[in-house]
């Protein structure tokens, strides 16, 4: 029973909580028990605060019973009492905020991120601090300073990254859903590798206030869930304009769940684009086959499948690593040991303290990226690197917008390969970077994208299908994803833990 609860969807749990079949405290206890049972093996959490989570759950039960007494009779809010895990780059007042870095090992946030506040406002329980690649830099969660998260489907393999903890926690039943952040694929790729749904909203849809910045112009917070419907529910809760984030867009937020359902009802036949550039060398044959099968499934559903071209795809990784590292070199300058965070004990003066603090506080991947980013911005190189990359970014974005003249959404693999073995790519950063080849373009173009389960390898590793939508048209994107999800049952499988 208890484990069953932990693997349920938000939608099912919400009905159960409404009926009084379970209390929020009972649900939270079940999730805590599950976490204690499996996290020693999975390593999804950096930390969790059991007492705080139970107190939030008790408060949720209290709210529910008050509204029952008031006799509203209306169903409870969909997230009321649901434990949502948060990637450890999203600020929760009074809780640690580490970015899986030595630099912030002992940092406690005095404030809530906007998404955190929105989750609280929706009645959800903010549950635990989920592991990631240090400062969200990586594709395997091996770059965490504290632990390597394991893929629940094969503990010898990585869960993907950087939001590996979020993906693994949802896959392993340690959270009902979770939030992650996606700069170049950091939600979609681990979702694919862990057989869960992961979505990156349109840039500007969700406030970044309280999200530790990696690359400001690319970062976006998004949901991990067990169904497209759950992802829609979570997205509705966290979206919207925020006066604390100048890049958050002042557009109304639709009810994604309802919009999605209405589109499914309408029986609309989608026109789907298949970019030929996403099916070339480097794509694992099993992944390619699964994605092809998914495309066939769409065809059977009556969708129109068209080949499209995104000619600048091959430049996406290059442009991304210039833009992302340049922005990170500046964003991470604040970690200097002056106001908070790690401070070297053997610094002799105010200049020395920077060098030693940052040498001790940052791991190798973070240092590499800061150095690369510093280099590309340094005097005499700006035009050749950063400015050129921003222009290439324009071309990449144009490719997508051009394609959307003919299609409603674009369908691709999420990741070229299934989960790889721990350590396999650790020594070769470039190989690791190329892992994001299918996801990066979406960030550069600021588009919404979702990864949904679409099969398994013969070895039992999950495969993800990426659907890419049009700016601020998440409802359509979710509907396209849900159409496939509805006729398959990949998402129902559970990892052998």
């Amino acid at each position, binding site marked *: 029973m208890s484990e069953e609860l932990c693997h349920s969807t938000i939608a099912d749990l919400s009905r159960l909580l409404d009926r009084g079949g379970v209390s929020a405290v009972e649900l939270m206890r079940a999730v805590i028990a599950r976490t204690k049972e499996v996290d020693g093996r999975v390593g999804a959490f950096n930390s969790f605060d059991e007492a705080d989570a139970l107190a939030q759950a008790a408060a949720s039960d209290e709210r529910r019973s008050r509204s029952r007494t008031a006799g509203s009779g209306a169903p409870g809010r969909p997230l009321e009492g649901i434990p949502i895990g948060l990637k450890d780059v999203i600020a929760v007042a009074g809780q640690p905020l580490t970015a899986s870095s030595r630099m912030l090992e002992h*940092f*406690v946030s*005095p404030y809530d991120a906007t998404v955190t506040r929105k989750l609280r406002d929706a009645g959800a329980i903010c549950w635990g601090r989920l592991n990631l690649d240090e400062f969200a830099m990586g594709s395997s969660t091996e770059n965490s300073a504290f632990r390597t998260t394991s893929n629940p489907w094969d503990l010898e393999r990585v869960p993907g990254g950087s939001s590996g903890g979020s993906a693994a926690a949802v896959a392993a039943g340690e959270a009902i859903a979770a939030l992650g952040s996606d700069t170049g694929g950091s939600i979609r790729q681990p979702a694919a590798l862990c057989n869960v749904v992961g979505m990156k909203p*349109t*840039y500007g849809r969700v406030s970044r206030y309280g999200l530790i910045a990696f690359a400001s*112009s690319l970062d976006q917070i998004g949901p991990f869930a067990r169904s497209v419907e759950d992802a829609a529910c979570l997205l509705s809760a966290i979206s919207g304009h925020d*006066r604390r984030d*100048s*890049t958050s*867009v002042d557009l109304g937020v639709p009810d994604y769940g309802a919009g999605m359902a209405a589109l499914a009802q309408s029986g609309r036949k989608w026109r789907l684009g298949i970019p030929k550039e996403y099916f070339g060398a480097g794509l694992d044959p099993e992944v390619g086959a699964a994605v092809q099968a998914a495309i066939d499934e769409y065809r059977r559903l009556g969708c129109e499948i068209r080949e499209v071209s995104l000619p*600048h795809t091959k*430049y996406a*990784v*290059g*442009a991304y*690593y*210039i833009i992302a590292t340049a922005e990170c070199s500046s964003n991470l300058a604040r970690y*200097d*040991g*002056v*106001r*908070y*965070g*790690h*401070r070297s004990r053997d*610094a002799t*003066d*105010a*200049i*020395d*303290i920077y*060098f*030693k603090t*940052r*040498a001790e506080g940052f791991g*190798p991947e973070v*240092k590499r990226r*800061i*150095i*690369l980013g*510093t*280099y590309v911005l*340094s005097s005499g*190189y700006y035009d*050749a*690197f950063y400015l*050129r*990359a*921003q*222009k290439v*970014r*324009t*071309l990449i*974005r144009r490719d997508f917008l051009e394609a959307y003249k003919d299609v409603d959404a674009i369908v691709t693999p999420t990741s070229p390969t299934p989960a790889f073995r721990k350590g396999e790519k650790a020594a*070769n*950063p*470039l190989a690791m*970077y190329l892992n994001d080849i299918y996801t990066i373009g979406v960030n550069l*173009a*600021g588009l919404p994208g979702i990864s949904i389960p679409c099969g398994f390898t013969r070895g039992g590793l999950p495969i993800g299908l990426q659907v890419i939508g049009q700016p601020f048209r998440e409802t359509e994107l979710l509907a396209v994803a849900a159409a496939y999800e509805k006729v398959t049952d990949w998402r129902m499988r559970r990892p052998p833990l």
Partner: protein
Amino acid sequence: MAKPEDLRLDHVASLARIALTPDEKVRFATQLGDVLAYVAQLNEVDVSGVEPTAHAFPVVNVWAQDIAEPGLSVEDALRNAPEKRDNMFVVPKVVE
């Protein structure tokens, strides 16, 4: 575009205020050299007449009215400070 060998690692690390070990210098030089060689393919792209994208969905004049709101208490402001004294953050002496 600059060639990978132009990566002036000592200078750049100094700008970034990160002390590198000799071992890190060797490794980073190779790894970043690979990355720079890879990104050099951006040179193939004809970007003449192309505007750079700074924001995917640019809007202008995103501002707030000038209304003062309460901030952090001194205690909260200094809560995470590695070293503090007299309600201020302490750093090793700044030599000017």
